[in-house]
């Protein structure tokens, strides 16, 4: 088992053809580089990876162009350039929902596999939703008054949360966004918006969700240039806590067990905010915040107990643009506006590894856990016809489209269960019993002695008669010869 990190940068404006832009997928703990993607640059949060290994894909929004580039794992160059209605500023994927009551076993991995939806936001504030296996544009919605910064999706895929420069955080119900029915009845689906949160006074820079599978417990954290991080309860639509940071917050990340919040600031500092603390008076552990309280995070931390200063530099201002925490919650992976990606130990606050720097601001970081038998040397399989994804359509799928809706997929079998030798042996034991005679009656047919003696007697008799017949015939022939001789004479 290993953990890997994928990172990509915004691209150097001077490098017009993105010749110097490379995205890397490297091991967090080792030195192995699993993949590299050439000519890859993306706006902030404008890239998304479907997974690691052969048959997985990387989607990258092209900056200042109405294009989405698709890379296939194992191929360094761009595999597909897909035109889209307008320039895209952020991307995210929605995977197929996991059913809880499914009687079937899980299915095998297909060679051609795609996530369910591709969600994109544009600098004009529009929200686009495509179904990847059909390429159908299921939703176009003017979601924000200004550019969209980031879109995230709940684990179940039920809600899509978007944030934008207009300082609003919008929660959309996926099923209502993509429904054919609403489009058939009216051009604008009215009830897709679940909730709108407009507490921030300046553009929202980042949004993260608490890592839980239960929607009832799901919290949304948004960070803004107004120097606050706000925690919302998704289903109750309540503002739970406001954290006031000393500087504008540029990126946000949550511990995998929601114990600490990491905030990247615009001065290159990363502040960790504990979500639990011990009450001084009664020595009990308490959760910080709640019920709309405001928690001020002090700037004063001379011993750097809660501050990572690894990205700070004296010569110019550095922004922490991307943050991620490792699987075990002990490593913080951070990218900055100078293209550096550092892996720091969360307890010692020291950099334990510095990954290959990119030529511009880091725009997307993703961590992934790799299985023990991960083989990154897998080559591309299948010809173009069976590898390329359907083109993303630029016209909204209307109500009548549903009858012509087609999915490009590879159907896979359910995971085969191994043969159970014990049940096979039990079956054989039962079969064996059927061969055995369990009754008191022995019905086996055996040849009786009488029969055998009879046959011997008959044989002897037959031999005797044959011999007599032969002798008789001989006598007859002799007589006949004598008779012929007499006649002739």
């Amino acid at each position, binding site marked *: 088992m290993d953990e890997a990190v994928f990172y990509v940068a915004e691209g150097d404006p001077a490098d017009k053809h993105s010749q110097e832009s490379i995205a890397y997928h490297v091991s967090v703990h080792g030195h192995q580089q699993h993949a590299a993607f050439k000519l890859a640059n993306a706006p902030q949060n404008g890239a998304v990876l479907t997974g690691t290994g052969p048959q997985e894909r990387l989607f990258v929004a092209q900056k200042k162009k109405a294009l989405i580039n698709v890379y296939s794992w194992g191929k360094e160059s761009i595999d597909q350039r897909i035109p889209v209605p307008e320039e895209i500023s952020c991307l995210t994927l929605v995977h197929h929902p996991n059913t809880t009551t*499914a009687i079937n076993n899980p299915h095998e991995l297909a060679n051609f596999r795609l996530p369910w939806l591709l969600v994109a936001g544009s600098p004009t504030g529009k929200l686009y939703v495509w179904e990847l296996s059909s390429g159908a544009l299921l939703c176009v919605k003017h979601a924000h008054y200004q550019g969209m910064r980031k879109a995230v999706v709940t684990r179940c895929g039920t809600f899509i949360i978007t944030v934008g420069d207009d300082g609003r955080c919008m929660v959309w119900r996926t099923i209502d966004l993509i429904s054919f029915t609403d489009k058939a009845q009216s051009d604008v689906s009215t009830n897709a918006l679940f909730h709108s949160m407009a507490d921030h006074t300046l553009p929202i820079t980042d949004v993260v969700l608490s890592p839980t599978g239960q929607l009832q417990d799901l919290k949304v954290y948004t960070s803004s240039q107004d120097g606050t991080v706000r925690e919302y309860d998704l*289903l109750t639509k309540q503002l739970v806590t406001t954290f006031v940071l000393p500087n504008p917050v540029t990126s946000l990340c949550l511990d995998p067990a929601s114990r600490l919040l990491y905030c990247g600031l615009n001065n290159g500092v990363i502040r960790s905010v*504990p979500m639990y603390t011990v009450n001084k008076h009664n020595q009990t552990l308490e959760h910080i*915040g*709640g019920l709309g*309280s*405001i928690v001020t995070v002090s700037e004063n931390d001379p011993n750097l107990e*809660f501050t990572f200063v690894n990205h700070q530099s004296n010569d110019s201002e550095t922004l922490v643009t991307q943050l991620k925490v490792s699987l075990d919650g002990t490593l913080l992976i951070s990218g900055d506006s100078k293209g550096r990606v550092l892996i720091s130990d969360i307890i*010692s606050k020291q950099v334990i590894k510095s990954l290959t720097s990119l030529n511009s601001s880091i725009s997307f970081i993703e961590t992934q856990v790799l299985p023990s038998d991960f083989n990154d040397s897998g080559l591309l399989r299948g010809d173009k016809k069976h590898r390329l994804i359907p083109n993303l359509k630029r016209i909204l799928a209307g109500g009548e489209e549903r009858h012509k809706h087609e999915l490009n997929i590879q159907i896979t079998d359910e995971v085969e269960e191994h043969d159970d030798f014990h049940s096979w042996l039990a079956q054989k034991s039962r079969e064996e019993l059927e061969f055995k005679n369990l009754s008191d009656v022995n019905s086996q047919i055996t040849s009786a002695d009488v029969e055998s003696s009879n046959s011997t007697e008959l044989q002897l008799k037959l031999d005797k008669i044959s011999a007599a017949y032969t002798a008789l015939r001989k006598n007859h022939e002799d007589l006949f010869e004598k008779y012929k001789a007499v006649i002739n004479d």
Partner: protein
Amino acid sequence: MSYYPLSIVLKELEGPLSLVPLLRSLHHDHQLLKSASKSDLNHLVSRTLNLCRSPNPYLKWCGINVVYVICDDYTVLASEGTNLLGQLIKITESYNSTIDLKIFTSCIDAINKICDNIRGKPTLTREILTPKLPTIISLYLEKLHHQPLLVVNSLTKLITRHPTTYRTFGNKTKVKLLNMLSSSYTLPSDLRSAIMSTIAALPCIEKTEPEQVWESNVRDAIRELKSVIEIYGEFLIFEEDQDLKSLMEKLPRTDASQTMLLPALAIDVNEGLTLFQLSTRISILFELLTAYTTTETQFTVKVPIGQLITCIETVISISTKFLKFKGDVRDHTIKEIINCTLRTNHEAAMKFLSQLCRSYGGSILPFFNDILGFLEFVVPFKDNTINYLELLANELLYLTLLETVTTLLDLTDNLGDSSQLIRFVDMALILVEPRSEPEPTNKANTNANANGNFKKNKKKNNNSAALSDLLSHKNLFNNCIPPQTLQGVRRLFNVLIPKVNLPPTQHYKIIRYIIVEAVNTRSTNQEHKVSEDLIKLLECALLNPGFETVSILPIVSSILPQDSLISLFNSPRFPPLPQYVKQIPLEKEQDYEQDYEQDQPTLKRRTENETEDSSDDVIPDSKRAKIEPTEPVKTTVVEVNSELVFQPPDPNQVMLFATAETTEETSVPALVPASAPALVSASVPASVPAAVPVSVPATTAKPTPSQAVDINESDSDFEMPLLDGGDDSDEE
């Protein structure tokens, strides 16, 4: 378990009395075959082959099953694979219906096992499997009728794994399987679905563009389905429903020139029984479409999901609830039969829809509202209430409906509008209501009494004996709710509760049902256990309280006292946090013992042991300098005091959290300490324990004495990583 040595196995194989112990020994004792000499292996194989050649059916069966087990060994397979496979093929060839079927099934199993073991190994495949494959396939096709399910499943595997070799047998297979499908006798459902899967797998043997063949097959099946649906237009007035007409237009047109997959139907209105062919054909076609949309393809295919859902909608829209019979259909029996076939069609369509939901997940969600809309038509309504008698009369159909709704709802985790689901909930609640026999109605007696004809009544009525029981012991006549219904309804509730905010009436009814059922189940067994599905439901109801003003936690806690999730509700815990517990210097610990030895003898014994243990460890001087304090801290002794180590949070205190000062500005206490965390806690007097930060970071580059980590002392589940501050002395 003891296994036989090889010598015994070899001896037994000459004429086994019981085969099972031998098979067990050969399978489980991995060293048995691996460590066997070459001559022993030769003996084993030759005796096995002898058994296979034996005319005695039992011995032949023994030989086949020994082959099944020993072919797992690579050495045997590589050296004798050809002989073993050849012998099995010979047995299959010579098989006829007079021979015991067990020999045939064992033989097919063994051939499949050998093929599976060889598959993927290039040399073995080239040398053993490829030359024999055509023989095996033709044999399977020839002997298919002996054990159809087993052979058809084996054929499917051969089609998908060896499409090139199978190419020449494609048409023969298809014809044979379609003949079986269109036969007049009813096939078992598992065999029917196996046949469908084999037919659906056949396009992969095409040399060029198999995906086109797959697609055209699916479209042909849809066309054929439409042509069968159109027959209903002879009995019902389709023109009355404009939606149905437009749906029919959306489906592909049927051409007279189109070659049909299945033979034409022969329906005679005067023979009502022939009308059932309609529903049988529609069921077969839906099952065929299910097979096409779920059977593995080695290539990408274009699934016409829109048309498939339109097909389902069309079939469900044809209902006598909304369409009238044509004037010339007057026979009541014909009307009943048509109704009956329509119900079967609905069931087949809903089963297909369920399967699509399971296989295509999110891709069905754009159709979600449409699907719920047309499924609502199926609910038996009469005068704005659910028709109870109709519901119970066709319980399986409506159970399928509920299961389809469950599968559909399972695709999303939250629904805004619950109004579309109320009918399904009401129907489900009625299905799990206690059922009783209707009141006996003896009109004859009543009339007789009314006429005052007592003489006739005196005559003993033999039929009244059973009815008297019905009146006196009514409780015995409560019909049991089928377990299938219970499971289906409970699955629906399990999905509904967390996803939909139902109106209070339905919500309370569901909660009441769950609690009553749990209490009833608990009281019916000695162990007071509640079934798994009810436990799930109770937990689900607890986690998703809905509009409840009074929590059901006390009730659920009483019903499930040992449930771990309920325990977490009653004794809430926070996640284990990263924390430091400092190492106690030995000298100070001893001081502590002297101070407290009279008061805490137990603690003394514990620390003595620890001291002995720790004194045994020889710490290098270089390392000791980093661990031991250069300047002893006086209050280090306090750190042993358990009060200072994190305590489990007091629930009462936690519950009081953030009441008065909720909207006031507070600061994060963890950010306050100005010095190293260890020193902060150490400098606080023992009587007033200091607040220890939730996550206390420490720099390992310059470890202070009190920052050394004693993992053994930690009560936390969190495992602190051992930080190596660049100490080279470890290697010494």
